[in-house]
């Protein structure tokens, strides 16, 4: 009887530790770190054409992937949460690569050609290819 109780108590403790561990893991799992992930390298033009020509195929290739791009800055803006958003030119003057940056990149201006990477979240026809978690690549 005493032995059973002991095993039972040990079991309770083990389960409690496992449950705590799981909760801690779930609440602390870090967001993706773009700087450390391997990227697919392209130009802004190539990324735009891939989506414009075949959205489904481009989704399979680029959705959720870290993309490393070179692009010419068309516009620098701030979103409603205060994050820096940069639009990059494509062959179509109405469509941009819209990338939200983690931090405001220093010393950049409209017309500059910059090298950066970020996560591609998809394509909105006639508007933009969307990227976020952007960082400049040295």
């Amino acid at each position: 009887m005493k032995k059973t109780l002991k095993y039972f108590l040990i079991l309770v403790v083990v389960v409690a530790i496992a449950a705590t561990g799981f909760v801690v893991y779930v609440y602390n799992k870090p967001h993706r770190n773009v700087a450390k992930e391997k990227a697919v390298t392209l130009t802004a033009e190539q990324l735009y054409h891939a989506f414009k020509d075949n959205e489904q195929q481009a989704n399979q290739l680029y959705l959720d992937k870290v993309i490393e791009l070179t692009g010419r800055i068309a516009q620098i803006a701030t979103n409603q949460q205060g994050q820096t958003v940069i639009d990059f030119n494509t062959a179509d003057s109405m469509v941009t690569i819209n990338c939200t940056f983690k931090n405001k990149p220093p010393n950049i201006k409209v017309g500059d050609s910059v090298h950066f990477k970020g996560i591609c979240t998809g394509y909105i026809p006639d508007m933009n290819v969307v990227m976020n978690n952007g960082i400049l690549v040295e």
Partner: protein
Amino acid sequence: MYTKLSLLFLFCVLSIAGLQAQKSFVTRNGQISFVATNDDDVSAVNNEVASRITTNGQITFSLLIKSFFFQYAEMQDHFNSDYLQSNTYPRSDFKGNITNIQSVNFSKNGIYPVTVQGNLTLHGITKPITVPGTIEVANNKIIAKARFTLLLSDFNIHADRVAKKVAIQFNCTYQ
């Protein structure tokens, strides 16, 4: 003959003027957020909403499911892979009309209550929705806001363990 030609000319000029009078306001970085009605922890925000409002009352928006940011990365993963299947359905689109557009004066600052009616496509399913909101005109800037609730099962989203309903907050500033 001459009168007919001048009438035609007048008609053309007026039509072009009419087209130009229809102005549109655009944003690529509007905001839509949601929170589960039964659990405040289940919430996310999307700051990459593309939307357009034209002065004749048309309103559209598109957003990418993968652009929703959750505080908890684990939740974001489940949201994308288990509930919204964002690889298969990467985008959500809305196309509709402001039914009382005549009550909005785009050239006069103010907050105008509106009703928006249209079709929302989410998770591969298109449903008509009608939501109340406001359009604020502030010195050439337009701010559209709306709050409404979606029943997830209407869009074939089965997340019963987490949430059955979500409260959506639409908040877009247009240029």
